[in-house]
């Protein structure tokens, strides 16, 4: 068994799958990072993820266009991000309650709509509802490198774009006015307000942006990974994204590293199941959640968290 695990073929397949699974976590986590750096925690990510999966799948199913699937998945996610923003910024609601409420509501909404739009009876034969998956795009020379080529340069376009966006996020927070405003808002909203930053607006935009990315991440599952839609498709990936943010200390590269660990945990579980690994399958399925638990224990909210995280801001009269 061990010899079977340690072959180059297994390793290549495992790492390639690891990246493919890590990407949706990474996309959602980058969005959540922006949201949290503005001072809002969005615990509804898992729900928005499900909305993104549902919208992406349904649109792609009817229009036969994966691009439109991603686009509308992102828009739907942004819409729920905006709603979350209105509730938590304008109505100063407790962000934990709101987030949990959005998670439960969105899950129900996707279930409700998938049955109404695709039909309750028809949906039970889910094998009829297939869409072509996003094809991988191998980069001609680089993909020929042993192991590394297959792992890094024979992926789909979304994987490349996501990985390439990481330096952009770094640049955005370091050098652009908007990036600096987001950090100011998350660290000290009162000072930011005094400096003329519209705190409410910055936070609204950040939550909406986080929603868009969570929607895209959700759309990735049916469009790039599975080609079908199921109710419990998100399987906690949204929650993993939330854990990855403090693990990566609210920095893009750290979040990349964290997402890879989760991707690897998920991929390993898949691979071992396929190999009839001598452990009850329930323990293999449990593995990613167990890793999440350990990660959140080891890398809890430390000093580097935005100071005003979860605290609503409003101008007092004096």
């Amino acid at each position: 068994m061990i010899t079977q695990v340690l072959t180059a073929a297994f390793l290549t397949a495992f790492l390639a799958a690891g990246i493919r699974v890590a990407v949706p976590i990474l996309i959602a986590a980058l969005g959540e990072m922006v949201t949290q750096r503005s001072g809002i925690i969005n615990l509804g990510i898992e729900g928005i993820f499900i909305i993104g999966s549902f919208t992406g799948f349904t649109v792609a199913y009817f229009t036969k266009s994966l691009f439109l699937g991603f686009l509308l998945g992102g828009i739907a996610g942004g819409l729920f991000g905006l709603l979350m923003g209105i509730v938590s910024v304008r109505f100063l609601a407790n962000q934990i309650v709101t987030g949990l409420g959005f998670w439960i509501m969105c899950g129900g909404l996707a279930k409700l709509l998938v049955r109404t739009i695709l039909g309750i009876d028809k949906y039970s034969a889910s094998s009829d509802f297939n869409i072509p998956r996003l094809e991988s795009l191998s980069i001609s020379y680089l993909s020929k490198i042993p192991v590394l080529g297959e792992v890094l340069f024979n992926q789909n376009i979304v994987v490349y774009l996501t990985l390439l966006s990481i330096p952009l996020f770094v640049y955005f927070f370091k050098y652009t006015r908007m990036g600096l405003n987001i950090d100011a808002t998350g660290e000290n909203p009162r000072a930011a307000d005094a400096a003329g930053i519209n705190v409410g607006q910055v936070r609204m935009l950040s939550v909406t942006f986080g929603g868009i990315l969570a929607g895209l991440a959700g759309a990735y599952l049916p469009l790039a990974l599975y080609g079908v839609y199921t109710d419990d498709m998100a399987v906690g990936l949204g929650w993993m994204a939330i854990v990855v943010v403090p693990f990566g200390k609210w920095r893009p590269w750290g979040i990349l590293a964290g997402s890879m660990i989760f991707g690897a945990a998920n991929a390993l579980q898949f691979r071992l199941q396929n190999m009839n690994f001598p452990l009850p399958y329930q323990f293999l399925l449990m593995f990613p959640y167990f890793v999440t638990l350990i990660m959140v224990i080891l890398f809890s909210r430390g000093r580097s968290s935005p100071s005003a995280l979860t605290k609503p801001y409003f101008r007092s009269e004096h």
Partner: protein
Amino acid sequence: MAESIRELHPKPWKQWIKRISDANWISTVLVVLLAFLVGGLLILAIGGDPLRAYLVLIKGSFGNRNGFAETIVKTCPMLLAGLSVAIALRTEFWNVGAEGQIYAGAVLTGLASIYIQGISAVIHLPLALLAGALGGGLWAFIPAILKARLKVNEVITTLMMNYIMTFIFSFLVDGPMRDWVSGLNISPQIEKTTWLPILLAKTRLHSGILIAILAAVVLAVILRKTVLGYQIRAVGGNTRAARFAGIAVENTMVKAVIISGMLAGLAGAIEITGVQHRLIAGFSPGYGFLGLAVALLASLNPIGVIFSALLFAALLNGADAMQRWASVPIAMVAVIQGLVIIFSAIRFFFNRSTLKRKAGS
């Protein structure tokens, strides 16, 4: 000195727990009406008839003897889950793990009521229920101690422990505790001595509801009349002030969360001894998560939880009829549940005078 005075008068967002426990019943009714209104619009949007759907829902949950009995049967675990979430939240602990604690309770109840045999029901039934409470309490103790000692975020830990417990449960009924005769992934039937007596003949209405109501009353008394209750209310009202007053905040929280887990575990135990009579994966349709909406709607008030549990039980029970007779998918329950939670979160905004007064301090 100025600093410490300011700390004793916390910012309004920190007063959240206090504000929710002071909420009045008018805002509660408004939250429900608003959630059903938005839900109705949604039914309209998917081409249904909201009035008809809600009528069918009420008929399904209260219209006849059996419907009524089933509503009460579902009230029972929901009430206990609501109490579980409420007591933990009183100390600012977000127990999103009641679902896992329900299953943990069911496991120990299963062990106690399948493998212990030949003792009198007078001892066996309480033993089985106690085992359930113990299971839930133990499963809740882990995230509680992690938060108290290491400040680990309990939303994530309790949630992940739900997934983990679900898989452990599914492993148990698929392996060690499986009833191989049945050919299904279920445990053997529990001993008859642990079955909860039926209250209403020819229905599934069992005496668990009496235990659940008793638990609500006991919890209300604990909160109002005991030292622990005083400490819990102090911690929820204002953590810093409680600390200044010499209350061991973390200790109080851990105690509250253990009680919380025990209540959820008891819900699992009652569901096994009262309804299922064996361990079955997926026996809870998310009672633990519904507990969150139940508790928030009831403003974390134990007696209020009885009524909000009844409302959600009726919703869950009537949803079946709604799907069959008005073609509105059962998932509508989750949507309304989420809306209730969201509206519960924003209802204090409209009480702006309090908010401004507190912001000024």
